[in-house]
């Protein structure tokens, strides 16, 4: 009794676990459910006898409720589908003036909006694309096809790669300095001579539209939410769901609304990239000390000046993290939206992966990662740029970058022109190195993969078999064996113990939604893969983070590494694991682990770093050794922040599990992927996405509530 009184929380948790396991053992698989291996889930026995209830065939026995809930939400995807269809094709028909046919036409409002939006996006993308690669569609927009037929000279020729490369190096130099300029130049040269120029520029034009638009919208909505409580209240739930919604799932409804192609991809990308930008903008603006705002007001700022000269620059740190996220998401989406027909490196990457041509996939993946890193660094440098007021610069010094660029343009054109003579009859390498005419290392990599397979086949196979048979399958079986009642009790109980009745209700609602959807078993499989990944990631991340924290340099180094890894599009992680482990669950799990270890490591280091230096010194002075300091002071104080890392780790892991469906896992992701190629898949895809988002949100809610309480308890903010 003493013990119980001393640790009431511990006792409550123990009790909860006992109830959970008790339920698991007490409730047997009902006879009417059969485990089907091929579908990896429990399904109703089709031969089960049924009875008539209210004139309907019912195969569901009341007692089954403890095992699995009836799929009462089965109508939801269909309803979503029908509503979308209705919105697009029937709702609010309005007359619009049609330029081409010179007459009025009736069209549903949403369809018209969607058409206009995609047309606008197409224009933006084509504009940049044609500057970089050449083409005539932009000109056509302003004139007509007939005109261009008569005036073929007006077709944009595109920039020679030499100019783009030198231009980006000069820009990088202006923004940051020699280091970045060198990097920019090398990246561009690499892309060119490896024959990735065209797809890279296609991807780049996609990003150059999607990223700035996402940034502007995110910032704008963030400001609106900061200014008005009502906007914030309306936005907040959407933001929460979007944070944990897998990117695949957004593609499916977008397919219906905006069709296929780059323009649709840009819109989808914005849908995914804007929410984190909004959240970080709000976060940054909130954190501004009120006196800084007052100082701005006393300096005589009007509202506009206050926002753009005081508030936003002061919140810059968080807004920059937002920019970084936007770029990250944009590149991720550049790959994923190849599923809905976006051109560029992503498309090549998917194609290569599909054909199991690891070498090609690796090249495309490397290119896209390099461009991602370059853009990320350039945007950072741009935001951190300082003006020098004191240098007495000459005209030449002030404009040297522009002059240099002008010089490169001229030299580039001359070179390209010379190239037409130099490479007579073949391709003009000084203008553009065509795809698959550059140096290719694909064969080398493919041979490498083969060699690895030949040499280590036995070991890899053994490891694979061991992992799958002795670890993964039992674990999956255990997850699937959980009766729905037990799961509910566990989750709701945890919610109650952590955050009281409110948290319990929220978590209960989220879980019920998934349980009532037709995909509970799949959700369990998703959860099992994510759990496995998260556990391993956390162990690795916390250990590596703690070790690196012991030394200032290694900590900074590790954070830098995390930064770079985070910039890689998520799909890229699949390449090396497929190289090693082929198409198996192991591959996906390893990708999950690698990807999810990034936030685990980063938040560990940041958490430990945020422990006040004063405490550090005080502890040292009172004579604790390093280990004691770590366990007694640093860990407890850093733990809340580390838990936020866990939160991120879970989200990352879920994303990767879903993306892993591409390799062929049997979870929710597989169905999302299926929905993509299904004409009526929009509703299903969207509902599945919500299911995944809700899994994430359950953990998100529990962890956040716990962290808030803990922080209050420790008195840190």
């Amino acid at each position, binding site marked *: 009794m003493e013990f119980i009184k001393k640790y009431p929380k511990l006792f409550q948790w123990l009790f909860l676990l006992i109830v959970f396991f008790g339920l698991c053992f007490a409730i047997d698989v009902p006879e009417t459910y059969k485990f089907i291996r091929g579908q990896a889930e429990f399904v109703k026995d089709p031969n089960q006898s049924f009875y008539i209830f209210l004139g309907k065939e019912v195969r569901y026995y009341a007692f089954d409720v403890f095992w699995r809930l009836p799929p009462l939400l089965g109508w939801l995807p269909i309803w979503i589908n029908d509503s979308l269809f209705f919105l697009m094709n029937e709702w609010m028909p309005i007359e619009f003036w049609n330029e081409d046919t010179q007459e009025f036409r009736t069209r549903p409002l949403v369809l018209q909006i969607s058409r206009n939006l995609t047309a606008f996006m197409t224009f933006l993308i084509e504009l940049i694309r044609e500057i970089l690669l050449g083409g005539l569609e932009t000109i056509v927009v302003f004139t007509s096809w007939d005109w261009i037929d008569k005036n073929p000279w007006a077709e944009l020729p595109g920039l020679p790669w030499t100019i783009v490369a030198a231009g980006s190096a000069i820009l990088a130099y202006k923004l940051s300095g020699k280091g970045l300029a060198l990097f920019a130049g090398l990246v561009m040269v690499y892309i060119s001579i490896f024959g990735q120029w065209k797809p890279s520029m296609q991807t780049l034009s996609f990003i150059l539209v999607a990223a700035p638009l996402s940034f502007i919208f995110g910032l704008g909505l963030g400001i609106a939410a900061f200014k008005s409580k009502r906007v914030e209240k309306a936005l907040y739930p959407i933001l929460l769901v979007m944070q944990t919604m897998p990117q695949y799932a957004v593609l499916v409804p977008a397919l219906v609304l905006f069709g296929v192609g780059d323009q649709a991809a840009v819109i989808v990308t914005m849908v995914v990239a804007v929410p984190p930008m909004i959240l970080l903008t709000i976060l940054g603006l909130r954190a501004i000390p009120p006196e*800084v705002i*007052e*100082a*701005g007001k006393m300096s*005589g700022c009007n509202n506009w000046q206050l926002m753009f000269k005081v508030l936003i620059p002061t919140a810059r740190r968080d807004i920059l993290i937002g920019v970084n996220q936007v770029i990250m998401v944009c590149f991720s989406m550049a790959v994923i939206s190849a599923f809905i027909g976006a051109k560029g490196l992503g498309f090549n990457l998917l194609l290569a992966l599909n054909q199991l041509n690891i070498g090609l996939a690796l090249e495309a993946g490397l290119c896209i990662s390099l461009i991602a890193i370059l853009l990320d660094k350039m945007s950072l440098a741009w935001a951190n740029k300082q003006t020098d007021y004191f240098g007495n610069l000459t005209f030449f010094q002030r404009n040297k970058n522009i002059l240099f660029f002008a010089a490169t343009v001229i030299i580039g054109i001359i070179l390209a022109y010379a190239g037409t003579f130099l490479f007579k009859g073949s391709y003009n390498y000084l203008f553009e190195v065509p795809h698959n005419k550059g140096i290719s290392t694909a064969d080398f990599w493919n041979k490498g993969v083969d060699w690895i397979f030949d040499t280590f086949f036995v070991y890899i196979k053994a490891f694979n078999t061991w992992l799958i048979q002795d670890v993964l399958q039992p674990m999956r079986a255990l997850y699937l064996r959980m009766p729905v009642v037990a799961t509910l009790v566990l989750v709701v109980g945890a919610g109650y113990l952590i955050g009281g009745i409110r948290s319990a209700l929220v978590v209960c609602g989220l879980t019920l939604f998934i349980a009532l959807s037709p995909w509970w078993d799949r959700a369990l499989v998703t959860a099992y893969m994510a759990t496995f990944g998260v556990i391993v990631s956390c162990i690795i991340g916390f250990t590596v983070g703690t070790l690196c924290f012991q030394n200032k340099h290694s900590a900074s180094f590790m954070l830098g590494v995390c930064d770079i890894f985070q910039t890689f599009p998520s799909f890229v992680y699949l390449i090396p694991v497929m190289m090693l482990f082929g198409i198996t669950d192991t591959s996906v799990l390893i990708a999950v682990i690698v990807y999810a270890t990034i936030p685990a490591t980063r938040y560990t280091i940041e958490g430990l770093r945020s422990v006040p230096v004063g405490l550090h010194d005080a502890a040292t002075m009172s004579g604790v050794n390093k280990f004691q300091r770590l366990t007694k002071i640093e860990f407890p104080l850093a733990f809340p922040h580390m838990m936020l890392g866990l939160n991120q780790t879970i989200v990352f892991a879920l994303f990767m599990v879903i993306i892993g469906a591409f390799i062929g896992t049997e979870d929710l992701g597989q169905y999302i992927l299926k929905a993509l190629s299904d004409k009526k898949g929009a509703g299903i895809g969207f509902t599945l996405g919500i299911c995944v988002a809700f899994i994430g949100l359950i953990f998100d809610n529990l962890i956040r509530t716990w962290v808030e309480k803990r922080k209050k308890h420790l008195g840190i903010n």
Partner: protein
Amino acid sequence: MSNPVIKCESVYKIFGENAKKMLQDSNGNVDAKTFQENGCIVGVNNASFEVSKGEMLVVMGLSGSGKSTLLRCISRLTDATDGKIFIEGQDLLSLKNKELIELRRNKMGMVFQSFALLPHKTVVENIAFPLQIKGIKTEDSISKAMDMVKLVGLDGRENYFPRELSGGQQQRVGIARSLAVEPDIWFLDEPFSALDPLIRKEMQDEFLRLQDKLQKTIMFITHDFDEALKLADRIAIMKDGIIEQLDTPANIVLNPATEYVRKFTEEVPREKVLLIEDVMDPSTTDNLGDLKVLKDEIIENVAEKILTQEKSVAVLDNKNKIVGSINPTKIINTVFGGRKNNN
């Protein structure tokens, strides 16, 4: 006092949801306790006073007594819950947003208790900020800001960021920033409290010199009575949002209006406050020594001279006419004598 620059009439500032209603119900008799029980915090309670051109009003009081809030009301960073505020005759509370911005750009300057520098701007950019907001060309504003940098002794650090400066240096940037637009009305919220004694004294002297030259209208918050005495034309003492007394330093020390003020001023060294005039004996004008002192000299400055004398010392007015005398023992009594039994 014919044309006060700042004029407050029964200004109230009460924080809380239904502050306005509670204030109306209370008919102006605001009691901090009852308000607090109803979830309202009283910041400023019925403040009425005037500050005339070129005058320096020092506001004192314990932490949380509402000094900063009063200043915020007068600069309209917060809207007063009730009452009227006039700046140079204009009704502050009825100003439109545009007029308010104009007023702040051209007339007002403020130094903040917690510096409130813009973290993304360097020292010189911070100082030039109000100028640039006004629309002055970058070059001009930077060169003006550089003058300010020199004035507050930060030359060589103009390209530092606030985070790279010590608290005192940051505060000097804040002071320079508020001075850059050459405001007529200057609000200072504990401007010198982050400075070390040496620099503080330097800044105070510099401040007095500036004030002598520029004749700004100043409201100055401080916790340091010495500072208040050195700078103030008049002192206001606040408690729980109420201005307990607003008077010249000497009057506050000699005739405290309330028990609270008496306690507050108990430890104040009289010789720093009182003038010869305040303690002289106007009736005796003969049988005096050779030494003569001016009647509006602060005692501290002439005490030593007087104490070397045996006879009483003659007190002169501005026209060199003897208006009274002072006995060395009187000085000793004032400096060391029981501070509790006045005079």
